[in-house]
């Protein structure tokens, strides 16, 4: 047993921290969030140069084979810097769907471009009626000869606006809630018959509502086996959920550090407010939550790598429950301990609090994962 990061991982971590220090202070981050597309192309190229875009992929496609542990390291840094670039959408979701479901030809055609920063992806899986149920898919793809015709809509598709290709989960057979009968398609972002409505999200990202009206897809748009995409979607979403738990650890560790710093410097009643025991205990609670989250995040990374489904589901859902709780145990505490200044737009703390709070809903909230854990 060894719970330390390998030398390679430590190097990756150092490179990322350096990038955040030099290129991603809070002011720069806020400029990016207001630039209308929600990321900066130069940063994306830097990610490619640093090798970040190849972290989870096999070496034959230009990747590094660092797997989920590598993603965990990258995502923690993304949390620390409140990074907006579409890493989750493009690499964690899009790239891994291709890696897990794609044919040799699809992998060879797409993954090297993705790793090189020349291709960006998004994953459209949320639907209006589905809430967090991944098998509740009404968007339909009908086979017409050698082609498919895609109709329906998808919601809250992060980074669809700047993606070159969008991977869409659609029903090819079965009832609206059945796991069997779901297929994945790679849709060009300029496909005729697709309409998009883009918007900003409350935590500074960009997302879109997409609708498809008889979008014609050639047979090579099919990603994986027809009707059999559900287990792959679930496994990639689990990987992404584990990844945002690592992001949450980054967010929480920044919030804890900033809050402790504030307790040491803010003076009321002729002393630093950190002298008050009632506030000290709350800072310690934040610290304990952070450490427990880090443990569950590492555990989830290990179990996702191992790939055994029950262990994966249990550990990912456990980490996600903790992440959901962190909205209150860390986010609300950080705001409260900062007082009024903690809920102003001007201070970075509020933006960490926002991101942490919004992460609860992504890939299923606390209640969803508690139930999923208990049923696994």
């Amino acid at each position, binding site marked *: 047993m060894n719970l330390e990061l390998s030398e390679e991982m430590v190097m990756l971590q150092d490179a990322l921290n350096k990038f955040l220090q030099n290129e991603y202070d809070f002011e720069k981050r806020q400029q990016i969030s207001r630039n209308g597309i929600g990321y900066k192309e130069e940063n994306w190229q830097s990610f490619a140069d640093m090798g970040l875009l190849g972290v989870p992929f096999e070496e034959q496609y230009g990747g590094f084979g660092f797997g989920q542990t590598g993603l965990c390291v990258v995502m923690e840094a993304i949390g620390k810097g409140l990074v907006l670039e579409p890493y989750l959408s493009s690499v964690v979701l899009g790239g891994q769907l291709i890696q897990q479901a794609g044919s040799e030809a699809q992998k060879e055609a797409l993954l090297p471009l993705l790793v090189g920063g020349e291709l960006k992806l998004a994953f459209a899986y*949320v639907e*209006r*009626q*589905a*809430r*967090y*149920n991944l098998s*509740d898919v009404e968007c339909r793809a009908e086979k017409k000869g050698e082609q498919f015709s895609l109709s329906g809509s998808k*919601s*809250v598709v992060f980074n669809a606006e700047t993606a070159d290709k969008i991977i869409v989960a659609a029903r090819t057979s079965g009832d*609206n*809630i059945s796991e069997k009968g779901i297929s994945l398609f790679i849709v060009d972002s300029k496909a005729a018959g697709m309409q998009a*409505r883009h*918007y*900003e*999200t*409350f*935590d500074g*990202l960009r*997302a879109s*509502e997409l609708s498809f009206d008889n979008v014609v897809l050639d047979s090579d748009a099919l990603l994986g086996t027809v009707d059999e995409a559900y287990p792959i979607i679930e496994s990639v979403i689990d990987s992404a959920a584990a990844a945002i738990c690592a992001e949450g650890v980054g967010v929480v560790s920044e919030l804890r550090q900033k809050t402790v710093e504030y307790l040491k410097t803010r*003076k*009321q*009643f*002729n002393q630093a*407010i950190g002298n008050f025991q*009632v*506030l000290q205990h709350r800072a310690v609670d934040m610290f304990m939550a952070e450490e427990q989250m880090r443990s569950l995040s590492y555990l989830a990374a290990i179990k996702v790598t191992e790939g055994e489904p029950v262990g994966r589901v249990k550990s990912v859902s456990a980490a996600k429950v903790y992440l959901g709780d962190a*909205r*209150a145990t860390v986010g*609300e505490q950080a*705001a*409260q301990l900062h*007082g*009024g200044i*903690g*809920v*102003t*737009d*001007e201070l970075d703390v*509020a933006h960490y*609090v*926002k991101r942490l*709070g*919004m992460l*609860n*809903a*992504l890939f299923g*909230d606390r*209640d969803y994962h*508690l*139930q999923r854990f208990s049923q696994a």
Partner: protein
Amino acid sequence: MDLNYTPEDQAFQLEVREFLRQNYPKDIQDKVANGIALKKDDYVRWQKILAKQGWVAPGWPEQHGGPGWTPVQKYIFDEECGAANCLRTVAFGLVMLAPVLMKYGSDEQREKYLADIYNSDVWWCQGYSEPNAGSDLASLQTKAVKQGDHYIVNGSKTWTTHGHYADKMFTLVRTSQEDKKQKGISFLLIDMDAPGVSTSPIVTIDGMHVVNQVFLEDVKVPVENLVGVEGEGWTIAKSLLMHERTYIAQVPRSKKQIERLKKIASEERYNGKPLIEDQSFKAKISAVEIELMALEMTNLRVLSKISAGEAPGAESSLLKIKGTEVQQAITALLMEAVGYYAFPYNKVTMTQGWQEEPIGHEQAAMLAPHYFDWRKSSIYGGSNEIQKNIMAKAVLGL
């Protein structure tokens, strides 16, 4: 003990309900029901309607224009206003300053200010907190130096709600450096358009502008704007804060918000059924309802003790903590109810409602901003930690 209303109270309830049905503007009602940001005109318009009816200041004694209601009637009025999604009157003039002027002000001051407050012709804001005086309010540093028949005021106030709307500000200032810190504080009324007063917006976590920082540079304030005795402002401040804290509990509003939550949860779908049929979500709503039930009863017990016009005691701290905890829990559940649709953010929608096809549930776009913004409620009016200190000392004698 009896929770039933007398026939007179029942008649009063119907009278209030009917009045609200006929007179409460529909456009304002829609804004409140949908969580859309309110403008100065919305408040003024509604308060003037209430003033005309004689109901704008239920807490005032009759001699100053209060309706002379019993505590039960006041409760019924609040309850009916909550149920009708009424806009709450702005507290600064009506609920906070007016009782202070009645108790500590001079006849001239009452003559000069109360009618304008009653008729919403003058908008007041509160100049209490400072950048370095938050929970420790008594450490405030804004200075007022007497020169002839004026005070010269220098300093800065912050978190000034609607300071950009206000005509006047009631302020705590330091008139003496020598006394112990609470002793040197005075209560002063300042014109917002006096030379040397400026405001700068503070944008909060929801992206909105409601609060401000106010700067005071060599502002000349006539000595007749001092309320009460110089150096006794702290006593006044404390009585005012108790009124503020009681006002913050907002039981009827929370009841209405739970209704709203249930409606949204019955309209959202999950696993092919309405979300409200999901056992774990239902249990979370119930848990908040139980807290609110207890709070309502506690609130009633406090109300039945307070005679008209008298400031409530340390129990106002309990109401403030529990009231804000319930409100915050409801905002969290509202946000959770819409799942992924908490993400879309649209500033125009925050102030005007959807001008185009809504993304997700019609009310969804307001719910995350409200949840995060409502974190302020456990901070303002004296943070909830300070309220616990007050209770530890004043109630438990620790």
